[in-house]
């Protein structure tokens, strides 16, 4: 099968800057802001990288998972810490689903006898 017929291509991660080939002014604003977001601040670069890794799993973005798995290692996280971050994402996703069960119950109670 033509590899380009897949939706996700790992090589595309390196091509992210190409998004600036049109409306480069907007891309510049994004990348400048993006860089500032991940700099050391009240949170360390490592902590931000672990948050990004967790969010990457929550939004299920394979590019982000690859990028922030590498970045978290570079920033000094280890596999235990990265796994805990993924569990945080999974817990929020699972908890969110379960919490919506209350909405289900409210609706069922309204309709039921």
């Amino acid at each position, binding site marked *: 099968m033509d590899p380009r017929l897949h939706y996700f291509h790992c090589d595309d991660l390196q091509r992210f800057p190409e998004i600036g080939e049109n409306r480069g002014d907007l891309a510049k604003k994004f990348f400048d802001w993006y860089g500032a977001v991940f700099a050391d601040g009240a949170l*360390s*670069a490592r902590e931000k990288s672990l948050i990004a890794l967790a969010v990457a799993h929550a939004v299920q973005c394979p590019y982000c998972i690859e990028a922030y798995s590498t970045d978290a*290692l570079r920033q000094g996280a*280890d596999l235990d810490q990265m796994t805990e971050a993924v569990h945080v994402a999974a817990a929020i996703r699972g908890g969110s689903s379960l919490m919506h069960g209350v909405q289900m119950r409210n609706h069922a109670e309204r309709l039921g006898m």
Partner: protein
Amino acid sequence: MARGTLPSLAARGAPLSSPAAQLARLRAVPIDREFPEALTRAGRWPLRPSRLEILQINVGKVCNQTCRHCHVDAGPDRTESMSRETMEQCLRALAGTEIATVDLTGGAPELNPHFRWLVEELRGLGLHVMDRCNLTVLQTAPHRDLVDFFARHRVEVVASLPHVRALGTDRQRGEGVYEASIAALKRLNAVGYGDGRSGLRLVLVTNPVGAFLPGNQASLEAEWKRELFRVHGIRFDALYTLANLPISRFLEWLETSGNLESYLQHLVQAFNPATVPGLMCRNTLSVGWDGRLYDCDFNQMLELGVDSPVGHIARFDLAALEQREVRVARHCFGCTAGAGSSCGGAVT
């Protein structure tokens, strides 16, 4: 102490124990440009030394550990060790120069039988002495008193600790290394190392545990200081982040793990011209266990001797050495990637 250590490449008779085979393997990887071309584009070719500030003496390949990434292919099964005669040649060379710092490395330099004598002689010349210490050697029975020896002779301890936690440290350096390293650091702290007041300088050195470049040195240092003090009550002065160069055992691991091409290509893509002025090959000269001279410890392991008639410490001639060009090959991309890497950590 490290358990389950592996034999060195040399002891296994592995093809990559040969420097020529290592260089050939690197040459087989498709990359966009060669190192001289990258330097030329940056206006930095040819690469010449600046003022010689540091003599780095590799006193041998004997080590009590067999770390998976070791560029020296050091280990307990190695026998190469600098003789007292070669050390005397180093001392004679140093006495005639303004070189202020001597950087002792190995292997575990402390396992050379003449190590303490050399340190005493160097300090007697009024030189600043750095010891590249794997920490666990300080926990072995014959060497426990080195902590006091270092303090007495005001040796700067530059200690390897790849990760602030046990998982990555033991994965790279062997089971039990983290625990022994923490115990050694506590003993160094107990005699004043790392307290910021005693003048006993304690530096930690981290190499990435895998096929990626180190993160920001200042950011990691702040995290490590906070975390090591919080968990273990340990203090240290500075953290150096070093990139792993694709040679020797790290090269073997890159190849067997399928990371070689992408890692080398990443190093090439991450070439940073701003790192060139601060490269260690410019202000440091490397002496091998047998007295031969090299531009750096990596060139030493690849047997790329200095491009100069002065090839041995016995014939040391600073003026002649300053005229040389630094010998380069593809592994040099490891020192120029990202923030750069040298024996003193990031260079930008």
